């Protein structure tokens, strides 16, 4: 049996949870196996019957379990796994899912493959998985030697399909939780003031790198972004570690992963750790003075030249176009 740990937000399944269910069902089909799932939270019970095609859904309803409570969730999942003895356990490879399954893995002393993008089935058994290394700029095929096999699914690795089939049996699980299971829990949520379009919302992102030379030069990028539809400014790690831009502007492996319609990379060499953060852009336009820069191997459009001359000229050109 394949057992899925589901992540919810506001009594709904998150997109990565739906992707994980899709991947689990797909794997179950290949293995000729059943799929079951675990739902924990407050007011999540109503979701269980909607998980069509699953054999059974275990539900833990508890008002204390609103939001993610790490140790309690790990204890419940570990106990369910011991009782149900699945051969594979799948969770979304999100911040919650990776944290959750890591805690389960150590409790049960099992290996865990985080960030999986594919499965290889041989002779009716899961032989190995493909998982992300280096934030996805490299892939690793790995065998999980311990049983059950624990894995988290990299977000966007599969697209969520509607669930079809019969309604699952709903099992109510009761658990005993003590103070210890609540020693890690969110105390409060401090909402952030929203300043303009975020990098993940923007349709166009203008990114700047070392080629800009200083914080001041980013004003050129701000001006360009201001002239484009739904645009925001991003940066490389060189720009953030020099304090030219805040870290929240960083695009890449250890920054934000963006997927705009257009990414304009200015004065950026195209290092893999940067590109892994913008590879889902529909189009990439690069401005770089070095025609040999790796960014040109990873872009759709290229302009070769000095950004300090090109940007002001481009800004003037766009103003002219818009004025006309």
């Amino acid at each position, binding site marked *: 049996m394949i057992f899925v740990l589901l992540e919810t937000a506001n009594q709904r399944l998150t997109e990565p949870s739906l992707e994980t269910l899709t991947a689990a069902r797909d794997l179950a089909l290949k293995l000729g196996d059943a799929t079951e799932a675990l739902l924990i939270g407050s007011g999540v019970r109503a979701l269980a019957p909607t998980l069509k095609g699953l054999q059974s859904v275990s539900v833990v309803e508890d008002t204390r379990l609103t939001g993610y409570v790490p140790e309690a969730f790990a204890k419940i999942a570990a106990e369910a796994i011991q009782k149900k003895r699945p051969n594979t356990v799948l969770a979304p490879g999100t911040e919650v899912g990776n944290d959750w399954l890591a805690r389960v893995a150590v409790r049960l002393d099992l290996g865990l493959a985080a960030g999986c993008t594919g499965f290889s089935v041989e002779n009716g058994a899961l032989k190995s998985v493909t998982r992300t290394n280096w934030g996805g700029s490299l892939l690793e095929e790995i065998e999980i*030697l311990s049983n059950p096999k624990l894995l988290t699914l990299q977000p966007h690795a599969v697209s969520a399909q509607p669930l079809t089939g019969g309604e699952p049996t709903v099992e109510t699980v009761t658990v005993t939780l003590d103070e210890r299971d609540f020693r890690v829990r969110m105390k409060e949520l401090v909402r952030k003031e929203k300043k303009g379009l975020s990098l993940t919302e923007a349709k166009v992102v203008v990114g700047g790198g070392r080629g800009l030379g200083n914080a001041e030069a980013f004003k050129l990028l701000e001006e360009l972004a201001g002239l484009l539809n739904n645009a925001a400014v991003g940066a490389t790690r060189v720009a953030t570690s020099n304090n030219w831009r805040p870290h929240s502007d960083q695009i890449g492996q250890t920054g934000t992963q963006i997927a705009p319609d257009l990414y304009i990379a200015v004065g950026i060499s195209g290092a893999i750790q940067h590109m892994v953060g913008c590879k889902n852009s529909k189009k990439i336009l690069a401005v770089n003075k070095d025609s040999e820069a790796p960014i040109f191997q990873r872009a759709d459009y290229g302009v070769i030249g000095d950004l300090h001359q090109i940007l002001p000229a481009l800004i003037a050109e766009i103003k002219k176009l818009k004025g006309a």
Partner: protein
Amino acid sequence: MKVLVCIKRVPDTGGGFRLTPDSKRVDTTNLGFAISPHEECAVEEAIRIIEKHGGSSTVLTLGPTAAQEQLREALAKGVSSAILLETEDYESWDAGAVAQAIAETVRSMGFDLLLFGNESADACNYQVGLRVAHLLDLPCVSGIKALEIQERRAIAKRDSPEGWEVYELSLPAVFTVKEGINVPRHPSLRGIMSAKKIPIEQKKPIRRDPQMARELLKKPQEGRQLEILGQGVEAVAKVATKLRELGAI
């Protein structure tokens, strides 16, 4: 305060990866090495906490002899002492094995605060810190981007799309840190000189049976066809047309 910070040595791959002929590992010939980025921030956080609250900090890594370079870098920045769990075969250690070796090493050392990176740059396992916490029966919050120590409590914040999630744990506690929590300092020349005199404690860890076995590494497909729009300012008219075509203007 006694602070432990655990780091990983990773190759500084810039423009692309080269794999060894057997595709088992990244070919690191001619590559430099660095402290993995999240851990670099964990090192900075450890130093700042000690600067503010007093006490001592220890940096630890499990890795080859050459990882002394990364330990020295942390010492040069201001960490007080270093431990190397030395194994040349470090690539065959899975996250569970690394966590067990670290937990056994530090169990009786009385740290108040244990810092890790949220995930290492290369393996991206997202689990060593969480595993160590459980093995030591300590509370842990992963992926934090702010940390403040007040008396015997730690207030940590996670950055989520909804806002800042605030957690409060009593010490001792474990945190895994994300880049962005601070901007790491560069070591001073004086720091580099005095770090050379600090002895690194070396231990040979015993690897327990692996639970994971790598078969190979491979590169994901990239497929973009480059069109050069032009050189220098002459290109701007064409760029503007393209931007309009793409709906950006």
